[in-house]
Structure formats: structure tokens, C-alpha cells
């Protein structure tokens, strides 16, 4: 049996196992201590009539932190239902796929911005961020205060165009417009140390991220991401519409000042290299 075949069979076994672990429909009837937050009333609006996206948003459907909690409805942990809005894996250029396949799990870990205490970048801050985001929204600006690493970002809503030669920023250079009740934010010009997305830890200078924000009700913020980078992807990747829910708890400080993972992982990588 070839290694490739063994890998394929192993993957099939893993996916079958994960499917078997998923709760059957009947299991949703169980009484959980923490459930899906109801949508609430109508979304608030700004003085200019657009939806007000302000709020303390949690990356789940419960409106509260769920890490370390017992008795949580699996639906409350989710930001979308993959049966309703599936997400395809990114379609990678052959060189990009080969690059990822050539890396060990430890090397992938060492390449993550999060492990290096670096900002995650615009796509990953919405796609893989277990902490909260506080949004302060006015007709002129949308300020995003990320709990993780005490990062922040200002999106100007004055219709300014994208710069022709953008300075590379961790959170990019943004241009925003309204399409009905959807705020569309396009960004280019990213620092090369940011990831394109959680699964793809690199990008080219042609990376362009489009965020679509809607607030269909008081308690829900929907963020949908499209990533285009023709040097790395064979076609744009689009996320499911992911739900963030309104929390009423504290926003906490998080300065990454005691990072021990790099040393531990570098030691592990050295051991792996020596074993080869």
C-alpha cells in the first residue's frame, strides 16, 4: 500500500469518526445549560439610517464565552451550520499546496502569527479568533477593538479609495461602502507576516480581502469573508456567513508577554530534525 493510499484511508477513517461524533438531530432536544442566543429585536440604526454594528461580539452563537464551559449546546458553539452554508477548502495553486504539504505539524505551528504573538490579519481575525471584538461604529468610522493582543483597527467610512501603492499593514488598507444594509469593506496591502487565512499561513502582494457585515437583528452580527490572491489561490475563497453574538461581559486585556511556546516548539522541531 502506498503512503498516499494509507494517508487517504486514514483521512477517510478520521472524517467518518468525526461524522459519527456529530450529534444526531434528536440530540438537539437535550436540555443544555447554555443555548443559542435568540436573535433579539430589530438592529439599531445610526443617525444616517444604516445599521449600527456597535457591540461586544463573541465568536459563537451563545453571546458569552464558551471555552472551559460544560453543558453547551453544540449549536451554540457554532458560527454557522455547514449543512446549510458549507465552506469549501481553499483552492490552492500547486506550489502553495506543495509548500503546505512539505511542512510538518510543528513547522506549521511555528509559522502561525498567533504562536509568534503577531496580529492575525483581517481574514483570520474573523475566521479563527476565540476572543471577543468590540465594535464602535459611527457614520464616519468603524473602530474594531480586538481583545486578542489588544489590537485595534479603524475602518474609515468616508468613501476613500484603496491606495494605489499601499503601505503594508497587519490589518491592511481599507475602503468601505454600503450595499443596502450590508457594509462592504475591501482591503489590500498586507504585511507579509500575516496569514492569508488560518489554513494558509502565507500570501502574496496581490492579497485582497472583502468583508461583508450585516446585523440582521439586535443580537446577531454576520461577517462573510472573500479572499482573493491569484498568486496563491486558483479561485477566490468565500467563507460561510459567520454569526457573532452580542455579549454583555467585560473586555479583557491580553498582552502576549509570556510566550513560552516558541521555545518549546523549536526544541520539538530540533528533535524531529535530529530523528530524520
Amino acid at each position, binding site marked *: 500500500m502506498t503512503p498516499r493510499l494509507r494517508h487517504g484511508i486514514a483521512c477517510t477513517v478520521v472524517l467518518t469518526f468525526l461524522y459519527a461524533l456529530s450529534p444526531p438531530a434528536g440530540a438537539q432536544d437535550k436540555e443544555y445549560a447554555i443555548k443559542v442566543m435568540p436573535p433579539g429585536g430589530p438592529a439599531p440604526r445610526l443617525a444616517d439610517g444604516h445599521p449600527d454594528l456597535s457591540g461586544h461580539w463573541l465568536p459563537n452563537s451563545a453571546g458569552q464565552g464558551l471555552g*472551559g464551559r460544560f453543558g453547551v449546546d453544540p449549536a451554540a458553539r457554532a458560527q454557522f451550520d455547514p449543512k446549510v452554508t458549507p465552506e469549501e477548502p481553499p483552492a490552492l495553486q500547486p506550489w502553495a499546496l506543495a509548500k503546505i504539504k512539505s511542512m510538518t505539524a510543528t513547522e506549521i*505551528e511555528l509559522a502561525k502569527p498567533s504562536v509568534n504573538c503577531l496580529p492575525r490579519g483581517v481574514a483570520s481575525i474573523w475566521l479563527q479568533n476565540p476572543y471577543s471584538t468590540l465594535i464602535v461604529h459611527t457614520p464616519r468610522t468603524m473602530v474594531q477593538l480586538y481583545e486578542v493582543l489588544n489590537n485595534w483597527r479603524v475602518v474609515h467610512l468616508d468613501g476613500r479609495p484603496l491606495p494605489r501603492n499601499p503601505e503594508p499593514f497587519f490589518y491592511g488598507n481599507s475602503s468601505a461602502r454600503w450595499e443596502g444594509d450590508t457594509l462592504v469593506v475591501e482591503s489590500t496591502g498586507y504585511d507579509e507576516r500575516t496569514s492569508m487565512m488560518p489554513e494558509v499561513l502565507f500570501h502574496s502582494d496581490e492579497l485582497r480581502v472583502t468583508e461583508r457585515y450585516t446585523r440582521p437583528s439586535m443580537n446577531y452580527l454576520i461577517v462573510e469573508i472573500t479572499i482573493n490572491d491569484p498568486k496563491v489561490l486558483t479561485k477566490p475563497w468565500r467563507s460561510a456567513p459567520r454569526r457573532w453574538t452580542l455579549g454583555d461581559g467585560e473586555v479583557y486585556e491580553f498582552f502576549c508577554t509570556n510566550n513560552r511556546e516558541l521555545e518549546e516548539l523549536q526544541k520539538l522541531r530540533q528533535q524531529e530534525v535530529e530523528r530524520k
Partner: protein
Amino acid sequence: MTIPRLFGAAAVTCAVLLLAVPSFGHHSFAAEFDASNCREFTGILTKLDWQSPHAYFYMDIKDGSGRVESWSFQTYALITLRRSGTDRQVFLDNIGKEVWVRGCLAKNGRQHYAAAGTLKLSDGVLRQVGQLQD
């Protein structure tokens, strides 16, 4: 497409999908710790290092011969601990007391170091303070 090629394509898709599974906010548990090498520990809580991205607590634990060894245990991020009700004061109130923890050892073989999963302090409440290993 031949069956081996089909499986190969599935494996690549699988690899990308599995990378997307969320875990620790700061890093992947599986990259640093061995989920197949977990143990239960009982000992005296001696110290707390309450800093980001992870807290560490220290325990004096007797080995098989009765010799006391100092172990350190990594937890979730402080934010996650606070939101789940296990804040700094909870640990401080248990310094010098006997506690129980289930944890998994580091893959790099670092001595007396593990990721904490579940923890019981003097109140007997089972707390999840790190990724569950089973």
C-alpha cells in the same frame, strides 16, 4: 481518477480541513502536547503565573519513591479562564492546598511539564482549564 489518486486528493482536502479545526486561541494543543500520554496528578498547589497568553500553575507532586517534584501546568488563555469562572483569585485561594489535575505531557520531553485539561481544587468542583484530552 484512480482510486489511489482519489484517496490522495481526499487526504489533501482532509489535511486542510483538519488544520481549520479551532483549538487553543494562541496555539494548537496537539502540536505541543501528546494526547496519548495523559495522566492524573494529585499534589499541593504552590504557585501561579498569571500572564498572557497562558497561565501556568505549579504543583509539588510525589513520585513513586515519595520524592517531591515540582510540576508546571499550562492552562487556557486568561480570558477563557475568567469567562468560565476560574479567575486568578480562585487559584490564589488554593495555594498550599491539595488539588487534582488531569494533564498531557509535552511532546518535546520537557520534564515535569504538562497541559492541564480538567482540574479539581479544594471545593471539589470539576473545572475545565485547558483543552479536554478525551
